[in-house]
C-alpha cells in the first residue's frame, strides 16, 4: 500500500476527485493548506501599508491505494491538476505499513 499526497490548486479539487474516481480511487481526505514552491506571492495594500502574502492557498489530497494502483492514480492526478503554470503543485508517494477499516476490522488491501 502507498499513500499519495497531492498538493494542488484549490479550484482543481473537483477535477482531480473525478479523475481519481475514473481509475477506481474513491476514498480520500482533503485539507486546506497554505504554501509555496516557486510560485511568488502577491502584495496587498491597506491604508498605504504594503503587505506581502507569501503563503498561497492550496488543497492537499491524501489517499491510500494498493501498490498496483499507484501509477494510474498519479497519472490521473497529474493530468487533472495540470494548468501549465507555476504553482500547479506536487505529488508525493509514501509507503504505508498498515491500514484498518474501523467498522469491520479488515486490514491490508481489503481495507482500502
Amino acid at each position, binding site marked *: 500500500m502507498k499513500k499519495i499526497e497531492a498538493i494542488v490548486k484549490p479550484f482543481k479539487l473537483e477535477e482531480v476527485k473525478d479523475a481519481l474516481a475514473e481509475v477506481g480511487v474513491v476514498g480520500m481526505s482533503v485539507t486546506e493548506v497554505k504554501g509555496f514552491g516557486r510560485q511568488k506571492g502577491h502584495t*496587498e*495594500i*491597506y*491604508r*498605504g*501599508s504594503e*503587505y506581502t502574502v507569501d503563503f498561497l492557498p492550496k488543497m492537499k489530497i491524501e489517499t491510500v491505494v494498493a501498490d498496483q494502483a499507484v501509477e494510474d492514480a498519479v497519472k490521473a492526478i497529474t493530468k487533472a491538476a495540470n494548468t501549465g503554470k507555476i504553482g500547479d503543485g506536487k505529488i508525493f508517494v509514501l509507503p504505508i505499513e498498515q491500514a484498518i477499516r474501523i467498522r469491520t476490522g479488515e486490514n491490508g488491501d481489503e481495507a482500502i
Partner: protein
Amino acid sequence: MDELIQTIDSGNTAWILTASALVLFMTIPGLSFFYAGLVRKKNVLSVLMHCFVLTCVMTILWLVYAYSGCFAEDGKIFGSAKYSILNGLGAEPHGNADTIPHELFFIFQMTFFIITPALMVGAFVERIKFSAMLWFTGLWALLVYVPACHTVWGGGIFGEMGVQDFAGGIVVHITAGVGALVACIVLGPRKGYPDTQMMPHNLPMTVAGTGMLWVGWFGFNGGSAVAADGSAATAIVVTQISAATAALTWMFIEWFKHGKPSVLGIVTGSIAGLAAITPASGVVGPQGALIIGLVSGFICWYASTAIKAKFGYDDSLDVFGVHGVGGFIGTLLLAFLGAKDALDGRGDFVAGSQFVVQLKAALAVGTYTFVVTWVILKVVDAMVGLRVDEQDENSGLDVSAHGEAGYND
C-alpha cells in the same frame, strides 16, 4: 405649566427622538463593526467589548454628573452639578433646545458623550489593559469632553466668543482625535509594529459598520438642528455630499498611487468627509460641502499614510488621521465656506474674524486635550498599568482579557 408645554413641538420632538436612536446606533454597532473588522481575529471581541462597555459606562456618568457639567447654565468651563441625576430637571426645556422636552435633549446629547470616547478605542486596540481602558475613558470623558462641550455648546467661553460647531467638530472629533494621538504615543505601538503584518481580519464587517455610521450621521448632524426643519435638511444634504466626495477623493488617490481602488480606502474616505462636515453642517451649503469633502479626503489620506509613517506612531485605526484632522479641517474651513458672502454659505458671520475664533477654540481645546489626556494616562498607568503583558498581547485580548474566542467552528 400649559404655556411651557405649548412650546414643545411634536414634529421636532419626533425627529430628535429618532436622531437619538440613530446616533446611538452609530456606536452600537456602527463604530463597533467598523473597528472590529479592522483588527486581527484574535482581538475582534475586545474591540466590540470596548465599544459596548463604554456605551454603558458613559450612560451612567452622563446621568450622575456629565450632563450637568456640560449643559448646566452656569460655569465658564465646567457646569455645576445642578442637573446631577436629573434632580434639577423641571418641566421646562433646556435653552439650547426649547421646543423639545428637556429629557430628550438629555438623551440626545448622551449619545454624543458615548461615541466620543468610543472613537478613541481605535488608537489603543490590541494592547490596552481592560481596567486601564475603563479608568482612562471614564476620567477622560469627565475631564476633557465635559469642559469641551460646556465651553463650546454649554454657554461657556467659546460659545460666548461665537464659535461655530454645529454637531461636534471640536467637541467630538478634535477631542477624540487628539486624545487618541496622545494615547497611542503613551501606550506605544503594538508588538511587531510596523514590520509585522497586521491585516484587517474582516473587511466586510468594517464596510457594514461604515454604512451604519454614514446613515447614523444623518441623526448626528441632522439632529443637531434640534428641529425638524430646513436646517436639518440642509445638514443632511451637506453631510451626504461631503461624505461621498471625500470617499471618491480617497479612492481616486489610491487608484492613482497604487493602481487599485480599495474598499478600505473608499470607506475611510467617507468617514473623513463625515468628520469634516460635522462642525460645518449648520452653515455651509452643498458647494461648500463639495470643497470640504475634497480637502478632507486628500488631507486625511495624507495624514493617515504619509505623516503616520513618517513619525512612526501606531494610531492603529487612524483616529487622529481621520477624526482629529478631519474635524480640524471642517472647523476652520467653515469660516470661509459658511460666511455671509461665501459661495453658498448660510452663516451670518464674517470669514476673517470667524476664522480667528474657530482657530482659537480649536487650538485651545486641542491643547487642553493633549495635556490632560497625557496626565490621565500617566495616572492610570501608575494605578493599574496601561498595557497587557507581551504573552497576553500575543495570544490576543479575546482569550487573555475576556476568556472567549470570536469564532468557534
